[in-house]
């Protein structure tokens, strides 16, 4: 069994939030400007020794001292920041997972805090205001379905002088559910593989099987709204279709003849999305479990989650 997205690190390291950045988590190193700054201080010192210029000594040591002191300022900017939670909305494989980090800094403002997931491209810089909870989105690309846990979240700052950078590598318990990448093989393909729960009563659903117009009710698929009527000022009116009520299809993993599990899951994913879009009542059959027919957002999410976690062992 594969540990999707988790193969390369030890899940034991991950800890549940809240995580407070303390002494043993924060590292400080000079930035490249810090290296240049130190080189300049060194040259100044060299010149002062050469010319035996006391004021030169004083300036070299003043700048050196300021660099030295700034280490503590940089360090203190991170010290005591608390990561309250890390969470993410589910995404489809191939999309970008956006983890929302909630962080607070206590009584003082923490300027210029950079949040980053190393494998992600974008970093997010922002201040954590005093006595407030800041929410930051950091993103990372997804490749495979399953549960994505960021290997590491790095929080850093180079405030105030930009010559030193303090950082902490955090391994918070955070998960992003990654649905399979949907495959839309054929339009309405789900009909072929779907087996009606009430066979014979199954009616195809399509735009040609229009039955009647009725007032819009919450829950009606948006694509069934008669925009033509709406534009004429008649309010929201839904187009009702034959067979949408009382008939259901069962999307069956075993009915697909692909040899590859991922391919099958991707197809099922595409079918679930298409069925949901069309307002069809559908159920899902996976080798290990059956999901009875239903419809709506919650049902869709349940089915997609089942696909995402199919064959994935969770802690």
């Amino acid at each position: 069994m594969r540990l999707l997205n988790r193969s390369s690190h030890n899940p034991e390291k991950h800890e549940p939030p809240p995580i407070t950045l303390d002494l043993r988590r924060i590292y400080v190193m000079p930035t490249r400007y810090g290296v240049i700054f130190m080189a300049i201080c060194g040259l100044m010192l060299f010149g002062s020794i050469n010319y035996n210029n006391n004021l030169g000594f004083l300036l070299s040591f003043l700048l050196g001292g300021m660099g030295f002191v700034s280490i503590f300022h940089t360090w203190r900017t991170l010290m005591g920041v608390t990561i309250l939670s890390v969470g993410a909305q589910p995404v489809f494989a191939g999309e970008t997972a956006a983890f929302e980090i909630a962080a607070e800094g206590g009584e003082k403002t923490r300027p210029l805090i950079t949040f980053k997931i190393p494998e992600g491209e974008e970093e997010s810089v922002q201040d954590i205001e005093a006595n407030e909870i800041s929410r930051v989105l950091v993103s990372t690309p997804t490749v495979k379905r399953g549960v994505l846990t960021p290997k590491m979240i790095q929080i850093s700052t180079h405030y105030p002088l930009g010559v030193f950078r303090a950082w902490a590598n955090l391994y918070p318990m955070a998960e992003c559910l990654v649905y399979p990448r949907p495959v839309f093989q054929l339009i309405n393909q789900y009909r072929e593989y779907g087996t009606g729960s009430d066979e014979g009563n199954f009616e195809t659903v399509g735009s040609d099987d229009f039955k009647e117009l009725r007032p819009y009710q919450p829950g009606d698929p948006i694509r069934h709204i008669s925009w033509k009527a709406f534009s004429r000022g008649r309010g929201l009116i839904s187009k009702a279709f034959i067979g949408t009520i009382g008939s259901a299809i069962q999307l069956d993993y075993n009915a697909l003849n692909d040899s590859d599990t991922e391919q099958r899951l991707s197809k099922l994913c595409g079918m679930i999305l298409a069925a949901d879009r069309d307002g069809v009542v559908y159920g899902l059959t996976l080798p290990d479990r059956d999901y009875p027919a239903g419809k709506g957002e919650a049902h869709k999410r349940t089915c997609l989650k089942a696909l995402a976690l199919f064959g994935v062992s969770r802690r």
Partner: protein
Amino acid sequence: MKREAPKSHMPSLITALLIAMLPHFVDLPAWIILWVLCAWSYCYVAVKYKLPLPGKVVRSALTVLGVAFVLSGSGIRLDGTAYVGVMCIMAGLKPLEIETHRDRMITVFLAYVIIITGLFKSESLTVTLYMFVSVLVTTAVLVRINYPVKAFRETMKLSGTIMLQALPVMLILFLLFPRVHSGFWGMSPSSVGKSGFTDRLSPGDVSRIVLDDSVAFRIFFEDEIPSYDRRYFRGIVFWKFDGESWTRGVSAPLNMRPVGGDNKVNYRITIEPHHQKWLFALDLPLKAPRRAFMQADQVIRSRRTVREKLTYELSSYLDFHTGELQRWEKSALKGQAEGNPKAQELALQWAGAQTEPGKIIESALQFFVAEGFEYTLNPPEMRDEPIDTFLFETRKGYCEHYASAFAFLMRSAGIPSRLVGGYLGGETNPYSDYLIVRQSDAHVWVEVWLEKTGWTRIDPTAVVAPERIRRGIENVLSPDEVPGFLQKGRFGFASNYINDFLMWWDAVSTSWDMWFSAYSFDAQKELLKKIGVDIDSVKGLAGVLAAALSACLVLGLLIATALVMRSRRKKDPVKAAYLVFCQKLENVGLGRRPSQGPADYARMLAAARDDLKPWAAAVTESYIRLRYAETADKDSVKQFKKLVNEFKP
């Protein structure tokens, strides 16, 4: 927070560069200043009216052009001035490219480098204070380019905080960083000619030096300051007279024989750089200070040209006896009275009448008094046979004319004589007990050799203008001759205050110089000895390094602790009181879970025990109100604390 557009950084970066460059504006070529100002103005205008900034090619071309101009101006040599020039050319062009964070950081670093170049000109207190100001501003700009959203005042405050915290580190390193011996007087990148004595004294030279009010040196006496008329500071002894000018004339041997004397005075002199090797000493010095040597005529010369402020310690006898006339002295004096026949004739006349040298001297001095000589800074020109002209025609002159004529007369009369150039008098600083000797105190007198006393100081000025040797030149010259800086009331009604302030400032900067500029290998050695480290052993040196490093480390730890403590101490009193409330409840088994907010917690308490309900409601309500809803005034915070204190679960 995203980085702001570059335009908002332009003014602050230009400010940093301007402040760093300002000390150089005095001696930079005008075209460089113009170049810099033009470039900056263009930057400013370009940002304001959204004009295009020049591209990379134009910038490179300008840089090459500017550097080429500077180098051609300095004769293709990268000396100190040219180096500063190149820096400034770059500082002018740098604001043209500050689009990226990298460029902006480099610009700030450039400002730091320019600051240090300004320090090589002088180490005075003014320059030191200015350095701190420039570092403060430049660091504020550094903070700002990293974090542009803050107000500039806050940025300055942060920069100031960092600087204050860095001061102890700076001080420790300054005191303990091992100094090297070799560059004792160092090499100044710039050498500016200064007025003062040279090894040739022509008529009119001293009257020119006197017009300069800059400080020649300062003297710190161990005990009492001698009276004005005993403060003769010996510099150069002139032996050779060519009928018009006096020159050193001999290479006197090194002093071997100790001088006998009385009234020993110990003192320290801080001499301003005069780009010569003469060191001045109160008449008559016992022996040369360190790194200098004394010749047999008590002329002290430094081993290296004095290019920087230099402090040395000396002892002198106010009353002394130099002993026998030496053989080298005799040969130096041989055949030294030529020309000026009328003067020679007069001297011979005196010598014929009396045999006692004291009487001859008396006659000569009497001659100056009786014949109506006048003391003036602007004597008429004396062309051929200047001494004859002075003695018999014009009879107007300054100290050098009198001394020169007197020495010549003595030689003609067969009395060994020589001319001494130096300073007389000086001004006591009322704010500190030291003496300031200025160029305007320059003076020339004569020494004659007498059986009884050896070389004896005779100052003919004393008889012509006695006030000069008692109180200074401003008391003997006619009012329109007194140099402007010596005139009383030159600052109008505020004269006294300004003079007082100038004296006070001189006292402050001098004590700074005494301590700061003089701090070197020797001073460090002394200091370390006091704390028990002997620098002469290599082990001691390593120890100093280790001490400096560990001191910094300890300081670092202290700073860290202070920072942590401060962030702890700053805890909100309202929150603290609320935590006390929670603690009290936890003691009875009703602790707050981390996930519970205050409101949830209050509900839980109410559900758990009926008697807690009103308390929980009151405390929670006040807590939420004080903490989140309004700005808490002191009274309501006090009330809240009281409420929590009274609470007993």
